[in-house]
């Protein structure tokens, strides 16, 4: 009898416990999410967008054929249901989802895909003139032809086999918009975006707020939130204060001090994820001094990345040893980084014929980026490290536009730059930043490093459709990079999102493509 009481008591305790856990974990429908961010969007037609604030908002409204998975950088179907590549690697055939409607009621089909893509790639398309198309090389650039096979099948043909295409299609640059809306709004489509996404565009007050509401007819799982307000709060302390006062639920891009304060505040949640970026110091190998591999290796030994991560990034980063971060597939973790060792650096310099060091220019970025939060302080630190091995570096500063222009023409000795690889494909970093193909001014390879074997490897990899085989090309390419070191890879930063604890299931993908479909808010 007594036993029975205990059993029923413990059972009911267990039940109560389970009930509370369940209650806390069951999403609540409804509510408004107010999202504080540093600036306003520029355009919501993401095929024309280059800035993070546009992407953040647009990704809620527009969808692509494919999208990155929630927890990894692998690609899964979105508006397409499946796809296959022809034997010669030139034709990609996508089967499309049926029964999907755009927010304006227009049915989604192969025609919509053709219009959305051709307006970008085809100069003669009647809608081409309605936009300023940026970064085509990263998005639809390799696509030469879009063909409607039937209502729900579309084929993309590339000029040469291009394996990263499916990752490109998951980028914000390749959204599918309502063809009726593009025709109706013309140049203004960026202010009146009509897609198939979980949220519909309602209103935009420039430099102030964007209002979105739930798409009741969404084809997938309907979002929990009623509305999203995206509020531009340019001043970072004001943004944190707004979070404290409850005026906003999420505060983006806070400074390290505010993040520290938020961590000790029981009302806030702080999420951290490794980013898919790299901050680096490029050495212009066209300059006689830096054409010497030993000198470049000496630089790699001379700079203490750990300290840079600790002081400049305040721990919100990891030191870099390869050109792209470990969160991306194909990362070569077997590579052992050049240790910070002043003596080794000095020895290498002596071996290279510069026992007394030399004078050199160090170009410091004038703007702060996620991969380089405090470029000038970083440059000063590096200057100090170089002085310790006898190299006298003079810090050179230019305004950002000039900086990009001059570095892309190779006027620098050492320059700081970085990259956020949106499609999380190693090709984006290795071919895009380090191959010999991109050394012609305006060059993306600002080390102007031309290594035949490296370039051959990464170019070949573009035409390999088997991921494991592609990865082996990239592993070898990283070994060559490590031996030749055209850069001092500095750091891969961590991205942080701070939000009110009442919010649940807040996503934080490293490439910034975060759908807020699953977020729900406690009452």
């Amino acid at each position, binding site marked *: 009898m007594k036993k029975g009481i205990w059993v029923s008591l413990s059972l009911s305790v267990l039940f109560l416990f389970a009930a509370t856990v369940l209650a806390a974990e069951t999403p609540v429908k409804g509510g408004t999410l107010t999202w504080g961010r540093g600036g306003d969007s520029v*355009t919501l037609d993401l095929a024309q967008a280059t800035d993070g604030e546009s992407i953040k908002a647009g990704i809620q409204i527009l969808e692509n054929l494919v999208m990155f998975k929630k927890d990894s950088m692998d690609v899964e179907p979105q508006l397409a249901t499946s796809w296959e590549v022809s034997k010669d690697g030139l034709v990609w055939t996508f089967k499309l989802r049926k029964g999907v409607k755009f927010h304006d009621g227009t049915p989604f089909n192969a025609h919509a895909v053709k219009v959305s893509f051709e307006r970008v790639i085809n100069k003669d398309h009647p809608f081409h003139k309605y936009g300023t198309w940026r970064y085509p090389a990263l998005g639809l650039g390799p696509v030469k032809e879009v063909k409607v096979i039937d209502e729900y099948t579309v084929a993309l043909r590339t000029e040469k086999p291009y394996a990263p295409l499916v990752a490109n299609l998951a980028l914000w640059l390749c959204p599918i918009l309502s063809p009726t809306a593009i025709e109706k709004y013309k140049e203004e489509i960026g202010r009146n975006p009509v897609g198939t996404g979980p949220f519909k565009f309602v209103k935009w007050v*420039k430099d102030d*707020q964007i209002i979105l509401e739930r798409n009741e007819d969404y084809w997938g799982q309907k979002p929990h939130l009623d509305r999203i307000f995206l*509020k531009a709060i340019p*001043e970072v302390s*004001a943004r944190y204060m707004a979070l404290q006062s409850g005026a906003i639920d999420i505060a983006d891009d806070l400074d390290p001090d505010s993040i520290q304060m938020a961590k000790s505040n029981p009302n806030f949640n702080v999420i951290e994820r490794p980013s898919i970026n790299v901050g680096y110091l490029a050495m212009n190998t066209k300059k006689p001094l830096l054409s010497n591999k030993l000198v470049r290796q000496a630089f790699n030994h001379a700079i203490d990345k750990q300290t840079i991560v600790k002081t400049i990034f305040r721990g919100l980063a990891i030191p870099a040893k390869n050109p792209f971060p470990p969160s991306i597939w194909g990362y070569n973790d077997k590579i052992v980084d050049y240790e910070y060792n002043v003596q080794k650096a000095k020895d290498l310099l002596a071996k290279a014929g510069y026992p007394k060091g030399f004078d050199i220019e160090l170009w410091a970025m004038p703007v702060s980026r996620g991969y380089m939060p405090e470029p000038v302080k970083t440059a000063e630190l590096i200057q100090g490290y170089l002085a310790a091995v006898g190299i006298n570096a003079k810090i050179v500063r230019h305004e950002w536009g000039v900086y*990009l222009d001059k570095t*892309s023409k190779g006027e620098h000795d050492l320059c700081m730059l970085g990259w956020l690889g949106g499609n999380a494909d190693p090709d984006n970093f290795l071919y895009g930043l380090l191959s010999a193909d991109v050394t012609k001014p305006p060059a993306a390879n600002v080390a102007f490093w031309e290594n035949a074997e490296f370039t051959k490897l990464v170019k070949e990899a573009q035409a390999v459709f088997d991921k494991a085989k592609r990865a082996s090309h990239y592993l070898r390419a990283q070994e060559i990079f490590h031996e030749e070191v055209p850069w001092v890879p500095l750091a891969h930063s961590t991205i942080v999102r701070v939000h009110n604890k009442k919010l649940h299931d807040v996503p934080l993908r490293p490439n910034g493509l975060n759908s807020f479909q699953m977020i729900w808010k406690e009452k």
Partner: protein
Amino acid sequence: MGRFISRRLFHLVFILIGVSILVFLMLRLIPGDPAHLLVGELASPQDVARIREKFGLDRSYPYQYYVYMKNLFRGDMGTSIRSGVPVSEEIAVRFLATVELSVAAMLISSLVGIMAGVISSVRKYSLFDYASMLLALAGISMPIFWLGLMLMYLFSVKWGILPMMGRFTMGFDPHTVTGLVILDSLLKGDLALFTNSLKHLILPAFTLATIPMAIIARMTRSSMLEVLSKDYIRTARAKGLAYRTVIIRHALKNAFLPVVTVIGLNFGLLLGGAVLTETIFSWPGLGRYVVDSLLARDYPAVQGCILLFAVIMVVVNLAVDVIYFYLDPRLRTDGKG
């Protein structure tokens, strides 16, 4: 009077042409290529060339200027390079937000400044005089940035009595009659939005008013002191006029000329947008827009804004001159002759 105004407006055309040439050249002399800034770090040469061609940046300067002016005379200020939206539209929304904030700030600063100045001059070397002039000194030297953040922290975060940012609570749908939210809500009889937007205006307007308020107070005081020592004031008093009448009718009216100039000048400056205040309080005004556009080398946007500023300055100066006419009878005869 009419002739005077039309002559001044006629001058405006030449001023605008001069300003447009200067801005056009200066923008292009600053290093930095808008096309390169637009497409960012990893632009291919083709991308840059395509965008330069699209915005006509590949043509010669005289040709670019000719096209710009041709369109301008048709009322077309061009298309923003950054957003692809007509500049006139981009400017219009933000200018109205700036007008709302500047008018409120000027009302506060003029009312408080003039009152403080008059009382200080009448009660020279009193406790009020010392206190208000000390405050005015603090007001002039106060970093706006710090003041704004402190006000925000105290009134919004700590005490929670005033909203901290924006023109109205998100979700309100402002009526569009004039574009001035407060005025429109009154016209439409929307009391909820009116009080809401008025509350939103208090902190930024007060922050923005601090410096002009201090300047106006000091200017009023010194100008009043000068006038109060004049013989005609003594005469007016001797005639047996009430002290209040002497101060308001005789002294203040005469002391007003330099004060009006200061108010006009400050108002003109505020209408050009207040970058710091707008940034702190997330006020979607023109100041932030100009700075962002300049950083992106958005030539048409910056040119449009600067031309607007030139018009504002000319019009405000004209208004000040017109007010002079009413305040100073001597000018009226001069103007006719």
